[in-house]
């Protein structure tokens, strides 16, 4: 006897098909614009000689972290990448991360604020985040193709979906962790909701929010590599090609490149978040 099979997959597919039929013109349009943007950023990074870009990144890392060790590591790391002939791939990976992170933070921080301030929003958003974080990352690649086509934009879409949860969660947590007395003080002096948010809650939650942004960057980095499967270029593309051709050495070189990029971004963000705290003498 055949058991009745609940059509979970069929329903989801029908929904996505429906959305694709009716929204594809918009998403494809968006894809066209975004991919032009990515091309611009990549060509801007590729136009000057690599040594100039290296120095600019080194200066930026040192300036943001105020730590010469991080500056030195940035320079040496980028030099190694350039030497391994992964410069172009690294630049396109950086461009993908930059854009996905900007979009993820642009969505994540407002959502986090909403979840922190409204109990209803919190109850709706939390289970969605739980699903988003437990779903295997590869699954997000599938709907990306019909909406955005193969290539960088689809990769950005799935990267944003994958990397936005910690930004939302930690923004929400940061605001909820602001001591009750401080919120009371803001209220007692007659602050409006937006004054309370911008003058008290967000500044005090800043460290936690930056930690969330940092996690988003790290997740974006790992997803950008996976997204090579749907045609995102960059370091992930190098790894993907090495797998297909069983080029062990090449694969590890690209892997090391990813690790270097990850360490630079992580240390700079951590120092930047920590600096805010040191300023308050804590």
């Amino acid at each position: 006897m055949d058991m009745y099979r609940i059509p979970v997959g069929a329903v989801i597919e029908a929904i996505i098909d429906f959305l694709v039929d009716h929204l594809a013109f918009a998403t494809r349009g968006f894809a066209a614009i975004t991919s032009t943007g990515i091309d611009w950023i990549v060509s801007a990074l590729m136009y000057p000689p690599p040594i100039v870009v290296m120095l600019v990144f080194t200066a930026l890392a040192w300036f943001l972290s105020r730590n010469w060790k991080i500056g030195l590591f940035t320079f040496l790391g980028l030099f190694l990448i350039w030497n391994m002939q992964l410069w172009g791939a690294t630049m396109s990976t950086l461009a993908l991360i930059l854009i996905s992170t900007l979009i993820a933070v642009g969505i994540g921080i407002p959502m986090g604020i909403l979840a922190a301030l409204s109990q209803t929003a919190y109850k709706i958003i939390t289970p969605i985040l739980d699903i988003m974080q437990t779903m295997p990352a590869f699954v997000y690649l599938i709907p990306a193709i019909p909406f955005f086509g193969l290539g960088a934009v689809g990769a950005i879409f799935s990267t944003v979906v994958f990397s936005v949860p910690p930004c939302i969660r930690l923004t929400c947590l940061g605001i909820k962790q602001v001591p009750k007395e401080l919120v009371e003080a803001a209220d007692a002096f007659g602050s409006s909701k937006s004054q309370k948010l911008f003058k008290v809650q967000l500044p005090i939650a800043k460290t936690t929010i930056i930690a969330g942004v940092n996690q988003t960057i790290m997740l974006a980095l790992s997803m950008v590599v996976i997204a090579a499967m749907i045609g995102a270029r960059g370091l992930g593309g190098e790894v993907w090609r090495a797998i297909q051709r069983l080029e062990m050495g090449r694969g590890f070189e690209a892997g090391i490149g990813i690790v270097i990029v990850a360490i630079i971004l992580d240390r700079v963000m951590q120092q930047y978040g920590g600096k805010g705290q040191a300023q308050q003498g804590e």
Partner: protein
Amino acid sequence: MEKIVVEDVYKVFGPSPEKGIEMMKQGYSKADILEKTKNTIGVAGVSFTVKEGEILVIMGLSGSGKSTLVRCLNRLINPTSGKIHVADTDVTALNPEELRQFRLKHLSMVFQNFALFPHRTVLDNVAYGLEIQNVELSKRRERAMEAIIQVGLKGNEDSYPSQLSGGMQQRVGLARALALDSDIMLMDEAFSALDPLIRSDMQDELLQLQDKMQKTIVFISHDLDEALKIGDRIVLMKDGFIVQSGTAEEILTNPADEYVAKFVQDVDMAKVITAESVMLKPKEMAYYETDGPKSALRKMRHSHISGIFVRKDRKLLGYVSAEDASEAVKRGDHTLEKVTQTDIETVRLDTPAVEIIPLLARSNYPIPVVDEAQRLKGVVIRGSLLAGLAERGTE
């Protein structure tokens, strides 16, 4: 004039507050109501008033509802029922925007754990209230600076709160409230987190500031000594009810029930009893303009006293002892000029007994009690002071 009028205010936390109030009125206890309805009684039918320019201390142990009550005044907590009028405004009827405006204009607050903003300097913390009123930058800095100077923190305006000691942090909290020209200040256990010596200093300073400012202050405290020291009147709370209210002396000398009595039994009466309540009417005075040594001596003999206070221009001038007066008579003096001791100690009507005791021990004359115009109101002698202490101490 009544600045704050609180009428029959209830605050019940829980799923069915109205039911909680009903049961409260039927006489169920706090524990019964919690068990049967899951409602917690915060404040139970409280009524009191605060006069303009007065310091009212609301006192009780933790869980007595005092912090909830003070938060009802500016509606950080919304009362379940009852009426609260502050500065002729029905606070309970304000909509959120009106409430915000009302808080801006009338109410400032000082918190137990200071509640300073860690990301702002002292100056920016103090200027916060002005900033959200959109006072322009130079003006709010100026006013914040004035408040900082008032609380004695000049030179620390660029520090962050975490760089200051507890006492200094609470001065910032106080300055933040003072920078606003609000007429009412709510102080929630403002000094409780400070160590005893600093607490005592802060109390003195608050009283000094209050002499100048004449704000209406509602002060929450769990410390009876503090309440007695700074409160013009005291409201004592237990389990959400008001057990007793009145001046310090009324509460101490006539505790309403066992709870109050237990609260007050450790209080050193000498700190509470004032010169006014233990002084005697002066029996006789000498007039500097008209009395000579001879008539002064006669007045002393007549009233059976061994010395007499001398008055000039209706003010207390000094003291003449019987021995000095009789020597002057022998010398043939005609005025009291040479025998009047003018460097005598005086106390005010509200000087506590504890400060009079050492004066009495040092001096060989009774301690005169004077008013602001230096007019003699009474004298304190050893016997009257001890009698006063004994009488009230053994309730």
